[in-house]
């Protein structure tokens, strides 16, 4: 039965996440925006809470590891609302609080999602309870992740990694870094593998932390890998070099699972902006009228209505992608639809809300200006707007990456 309401069984989870957003994140948002690179200690205790939420039986998870797909056949037949959906919903609430702080939540890194997506059971157990960052981008390879130069060379029971990684979210604070490297640069995408590297590994050197436009509460690290030796058991996925691009597609599959979550972050931030702006407009005597045509309303009300409409579309596209993952349906297209819509909507809405609020929106006395700075990363990381449009177009048009470049 078609029903697009938030599932009731996730009510408590959502309420809890909302409380965290309002009572933990918001009060410290400005502080950690100003004190870039300071570790938000308040989150350590909170992380334990999220761990608890994750263990909450069939309610599904709330954190980064919630993206692990259930195998076919287990669980009840028919419609499922599982951990992909619950994770998306709780991320929306938490990012309504603060995106930077969510990204700084211990054990909720993108690396945790990667491990949850592709690790085998042994690895899953071995890395349980640790905070994992993800290192893909290099100075010469951003969106073109197939062009990475970091190498991994097998030496006995170990791989030796060499290269440079940048833009590693939570790279300083995490326990583990999932590093993408190639086994053979000549073999293209099929040779790219991901390796779990202990943060304490002497071959993994922290070069610097970036200063950023927004999400300053989240540390963004640059590393050099110098003869960094990792046990061969730390390779995620199959160790063979894939003949076709299949192996790379496997690595990229992580993104089918994590893109809806990043879309959820954007949706949460958008909601924060809209809620704040609605209050400010009401103070100024303007309320959107759902029954009146847009063209007959004052400009600010009509603009609010338009932003709310794009928000709702982004929100439902995000839930759709997560719901499909829960139900074992291929969702690569829908994940990109969600990320594309949510990413651009959050930037658009955040910047317009700043303008609607005027100097109040632009000044640091409120959080709107901060959200507008935070928003921009959500249309960039985990695949820029343009990469999403590429993925969507290739799927719809049935084109390869050689045909539509």
């Amino acid at each position, binding site marked *: 039965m078609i*029903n697009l309401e938030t599932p009731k069984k996730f009510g408590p989870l959502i309420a809890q996440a909302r409380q965290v957003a309002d009572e933990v994140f918001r009060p410290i948002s400005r502080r950690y925006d100003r004190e870039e690179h300071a570790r938000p200690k308040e989150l350590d205790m909170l992380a334990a809470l999220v761990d608890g939420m994750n263990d909450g039986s069939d309610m599904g998870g709330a954190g980064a590891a919630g993206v692990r797909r259930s195998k076919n056949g287990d669980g009840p037949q028919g419609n499922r609302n599982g951990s992909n959906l619950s994770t998306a919903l709780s991320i929306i609430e938490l990012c309504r609080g603060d995106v930077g702080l969510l990204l700084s939540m211990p054990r909720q890194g993108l690396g945790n999602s990667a491990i949850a997506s592709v690790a085998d059971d042994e690895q899953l157990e071995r890395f349980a309870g640790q905070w994992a960052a993800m290192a893909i981008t290099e100075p010469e390879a951003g969106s073109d992740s197939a062009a990475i130069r970091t190498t991994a060379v097998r030496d006995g029971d170990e791989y030796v990694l060499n290269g440079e990684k940048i833009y590693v979210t939570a790279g300083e604070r995490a326990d583990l870094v999932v590093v993408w490297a190639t086994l053979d640069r000549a073999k293209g995408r099929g040779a790219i593998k991901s390796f779990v590297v202990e943060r304490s590994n002497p071959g993994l050197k922290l070069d610097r932390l970036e200063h950023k436009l927004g999400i300053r509460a989240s540390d963004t690290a640059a590393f050099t890998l110098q003869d960094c030796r990792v046990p061969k058991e730390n390779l995620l996925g199959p160790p063979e070099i894939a003949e076709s691009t299949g192996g790379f597609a496997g690595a990229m599959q992580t993104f089918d699972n994590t893109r809806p979550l990043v879309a959820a972050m954007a949706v949460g931030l958008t909601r924060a902006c809209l809620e704040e702006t609605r209050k400010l407009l009401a103070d100024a005597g303007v309320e959107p009228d759902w*029954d009146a045509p*847009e063209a*007959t309303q004052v400009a600010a009300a009509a603009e609010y209505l338009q932003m709310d409409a794009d928000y709702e579309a982004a929100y439902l596209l995000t839930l*759709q992608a997560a719901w499909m993952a829960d139900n074992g349906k291929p969702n690569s297209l829908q994940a990109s639809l969600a990320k594309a819509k949510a990413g651009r909507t959050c930037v658009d809405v955040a910047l317009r809300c700043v303008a609607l609020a005027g100097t109040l929106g632009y000044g640091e006395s409120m959080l709107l200006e901060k959200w507008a700075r935070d928003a921009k990363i959500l249309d960039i990381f985990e695949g820029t707007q343009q990469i999403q449009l*590429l993925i*969507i177009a290739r799927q719809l048009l049935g084109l390869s990456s050689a045909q539509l470049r």
Partner: protein
Amino acid sequence: MTVAERSMGLGLRALNRLAGSEVVDRLGVRKPAERALYRATRDGFKVVGRTGRTFAAAQRLGRPARPRPAGSGSGLFDLTPDDEQQMLVEAWRDFASARLRPAAGPAEKGEGNAEVFAEANELGLTMLGVPEELGGAISERSAVTAVLAAEALSHGDAGLTVGALAPAGVATALALWGDADQQATYLPALVGEDVPAAAVAVAEPRALFDPVKRLETVARPQAGGFVISGEKALVPRASDAELLLVAARIEGRGTAGLFLVEPSDGGVLVKDEPAMGLRGARLGRLVLQDAPVGRGALLAEGDPKVFAELIARSRLAWAAVAAGVSKAVLDYVIPYANERIAFGEPISHRQAVAFTISNIAVEQEGLRLVTLKAASRADQEKDFAREAALARSLALRHGMQIGSDGVQILGGAGYITEHPVERWYRDLRAAGLMEGVLVV
């Protein structure tokens, strides 16, 4: 236990009507040659503009019958239509591609419209919002099903869909809000074999028209009922209309109400009012000059909440039409962009073209989901004013953009009537500005 009782409330009757319909029978297997033969041998269409019918209550229930609110099922998020909906959607899609799409061009010039409307009646569209006790197909509210119908049919052609669904709008309004007399008087004809042309007439020919606050059509109380005066714009099948549900300000109350008007009772003038698009719907302008109606013509005793809900439901239906036409654009430009060669390769290999197509997909899917959410809330008797407004906003802005992008991708070819994208460009502009007409 009937299908209606155990599921969404979409009963066997709609499916039966479909299954028994020659239209569907033949569409399922027909090849183009057979299709041509089928058209040639089909019975001649019904007389247009007939005035012979009188609506009279044959048998009335003691009290009005209403579709029940839909339960929320398991309460889980779910985008899968139930089995009955799926079967109906497939039949509508077949009808849209085999019948509406080929008929769309001629219908713009007024050729074959009546024939299409008669065939569409065989699909039981007017039964979708009417409870079984009243001869309809449902037991539970079915705005979602009506959205799916508007979307699937519009993929074939928006104008014909609007014309075909207009009587269903009146039927649904009667089912939701009519009293026992109103239901007994009009619903048997609306759900019968020979469905009268009927429409919900709301829009007026004025800039910044607001149906809730700025209605100029007025109903003046007089002995035994009301007289209604005013103008209604872009009413589908207006010159054939046998029954109208007219939005008018109620003098002395200051609020708007909906009145059942039979044009044959006099005081209603009609002229053709062709528009930019939706031409298959045979749009017309109505002028009401002291059109007399009885006291029993006012729907829901003029409850302003009912009026606002009808407006919201009609906007939802238009959003569904926009979603259907937008999908038609998407489905059309994909093969075109892959086949059209420029600069030595298919134009789809260029990001400027490919990204335009991606954007169509993003906005079409968003529009569709917001529309479905609003409809599912309506079925569960949750407030859906916000969601309906949002769906309309998306239809207004993104629908327009998708129409424009569709033509742009085809370039000069898109501007020529040989391809349907120019028609969709015109049709999509309507979805965010029309009021009334359709009701889900």
